């Protein structure tokens, strides 16, 4: 076989080799769907305790994927349908650990009869996020994003069968489909302009075109709008509070982090080839003002509305909106060699920390549930420190972290973003940094309300709630990491920096 033949074939055959951790996860998904229905009665009931086994299988699959991730090759490949580089390495690590936490969070939220499907969805979503990072082609990217969306609909729909959950599921489904359509329209415009779906080829095409690629810019606007839905950036955030409120806490925990991670990674992936390669006009004059406004509006609206909430999950939804506003600052500052740290680094750091603190907060809310009824209002947290001091302490850590106060990782994450925006030097970016500080102060208002409710008010009753270990393990792990990362931020920071050095 001559040399070109080998290159041709290997470009096809090697694709599977780059996604082995994802294949493990998806294989487990198939097993779950195949075996799951055989273990339940026609009416959907199962032996009590079956969920523990499915949960164990999910954890085993994720741990296997983690092992493969850790031992896998870090060789950079930029051709073919999948691209392997340090961002992929980072996203895989973050997502697999988040998946591990989400499995624990979901553990007691699901009936035995539905555990197989629920955990399968979680694994599929995990694989989807990894594939978003891996995608080197618009088609692959879209499929990966749908691999996140479709199981998410199911995941939101599965846990409870009351009207609120159904409404939340349907609402998310309809708007998500709508946003996918917007994004797909953007993809088609980019494809129409570049004549290829391959991202590096698009980059070349854009760099070589000698006129303003208006179509590609319009396409990018659609893509950003479509992805902004996943990020819950304003004005694409409206579903978030309703859906968070309606769905089970595990669904809200998933929504609060996973789509945001996928959305940001997709944006980083798309903005680099499409924007960085194109003439300077695109980046400086067109895309950045849009992202700037998106960031500012998002953080202000998120915090303004967050202050008014009495429902915990609605509040956390708006808190997520506000945090997306902060993270968009990082995207805005972008990759500037002059500023230390650069915006993307700060964003990647923030993403990981945000995941820990928001999933941790939901884990505590689940652990504090009484009689399997979700905690809804702030009043139900009153006096938690008397009834469950450990949970109250952990929730306080997460609230401090979300508010960006030491000694938590949230403080350093905000500090990094602030430094990135400030050091970059533009007046507009310094405004962003300033807005971020103002918003952080506003945000601490409602985070501290939670702490105040837990510590300064008398408990409504002496009910101790459940002592299911899984959510407690998840929240302890998150607390430990949130605090450890404050004291040893270099662990994560070094990883982030290797991402950018490639």
């Amino acid at each position, binding site marked *: 076989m001559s040399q070109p033949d080998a*290159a041709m074939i290997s470009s096809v055959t090697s694709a599977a080799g780059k996604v082995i951790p994802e294949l493990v996860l998806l294989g487990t998904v198939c097993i779950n769907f195949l075996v799951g229905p055989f273990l339940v009665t026609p009416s959907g009931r199962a032996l009590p305790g079956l969920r523990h086994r499915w949960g164990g299988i999910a954890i085993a699959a994720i741990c296997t994927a983690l092992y493969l991730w850790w031992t896998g090759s870090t060789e950079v490949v930029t051709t073919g349908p999948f691209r392997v580089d340090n961002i992929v390495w980072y996203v895989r690590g973050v997502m697999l650990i988040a998946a591990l936490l989400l499995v624990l969070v979901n553990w007691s939220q699901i009936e035995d009869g539905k555990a197989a499907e629920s955990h399968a969805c979680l694994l599929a979503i995990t694989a989807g996020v990894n594939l978003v990072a891996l995608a080197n082609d618009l088609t692959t990217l879209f499929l990966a994003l749908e691999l996140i969306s479709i199981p998410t609909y199911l995941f939101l729909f599965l846990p409870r069968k009351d009207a609120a959950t159904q409404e939340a599921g349907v609402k998310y489904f309809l708007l998500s489909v709508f946003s996918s359509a917007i994004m797909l329209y953007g993809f088609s415009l980019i494809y129409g302009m570049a004549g290829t779906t*391959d991202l590096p080829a698009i980059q070349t095409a854009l760099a070589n075109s000698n006129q303003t690629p208006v179509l590609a810019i319009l396409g990018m606007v659609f893509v950003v709008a479509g992805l902004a839905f996943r990020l819950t950036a304003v004005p694409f955030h409206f579903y978030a509070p309703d859906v968070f409120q309606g769905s089970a806490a595990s669904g809200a925990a998933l929504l609060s982090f996973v789509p945001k991670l996928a959305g940001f990674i997709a944006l980083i992936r798309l903005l680099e080839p499409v924007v960085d390669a194109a003439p300077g006009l695109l980046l400086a004059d067109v895309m950045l003002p849009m992202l700037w406004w998106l960031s500012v509006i998002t953080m202000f609206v998120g915090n303004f509305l967050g202050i008014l909430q009495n429902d915990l999950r609605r509040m956390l939804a708006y808190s997520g909106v506000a945090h997306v506003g902060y993270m968009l600052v990082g995207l805005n500052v972008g990759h500037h060699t002059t500023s230390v740290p650069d915006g993307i680094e700060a964003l990647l750091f923030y993403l990981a920390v945000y995941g820990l603190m928001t999933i941790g907060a939901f884990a505590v809310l689940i652990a504090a549930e009484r009689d399997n009824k979700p905690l809804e209002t702030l009043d139900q947290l009153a006096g938690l420190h008397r009834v469950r001091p450990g949970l109250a302490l952990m929730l306080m850590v997460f609230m401090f972290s979300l508010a960006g106060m030491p000694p938590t990782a949230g403080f350093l994450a905000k500090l990094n973003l602030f430094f990135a925006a400030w050091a970059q030097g533009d007046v507009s970016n310094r405004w962003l940094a300033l807005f971020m500080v103002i918003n952080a102060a506003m945000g601490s208002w409602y985070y501290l309300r939670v702490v105040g409710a837990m510590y300064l008010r008398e408990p409504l009753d002496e009910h101790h709630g459940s002592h299911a270990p899984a959510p407690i393990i998840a929240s302890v792990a998150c607390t430990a990491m949130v605090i450890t990362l404050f004291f040893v931020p270099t662990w994560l920071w070094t990883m982030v920096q290797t991402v950018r050095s490639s």
Partner: protein
Amino acid sequence: MTDVAGHLLIFTLCGVVLFVIPLVIGRWIRPARPSAAKDDIYECGEPTIGSSFIQFDLRFYVVALLFIVFDVELVFFFPWAQVFGSAIHLADTSISADAANHLTSTLFPEIHSPATSDQHSAISTTSLHPRAALALGWMSFVDVIIFFAVLLVGFAYLWKRGDLDWVRADELKSIANPSHR
């Protein structure tokens, strides 16, 4: 600015005008003699029973969705069949160099562009070796088997859950034994 906005403006204007003109013309030239019969709902010549704004049974949608899944799956088979066919054809050692070259370029458009295939020298070096083509064919075959298997997992899931039955087992029980409801 003016250029783009002008275009948009003209486009919008044309759209509105073209939409309004036929309505206006029709309003002018048609005779207007409304009657009660004209406002009736037309449904295949049959008199309607009740309102037509009713909820259809969800099972219709489930079946429709299933149909679409397999329908779309069929669409995916077309590009695959193209690749598989070309590869198997290439594996045949008896075809001409020209044909081989052409097939290779359809399989690997980015590596083997038509521009280079015109040159005679390129043919011998870049057309796919028959053994490699056979391997490629087999690989794509395995690919589609996996694809199909994953689809069948979903099918088996639906089947076992009873989503293919018009009347599901648990509902049958509750029909036979209404006190359980």
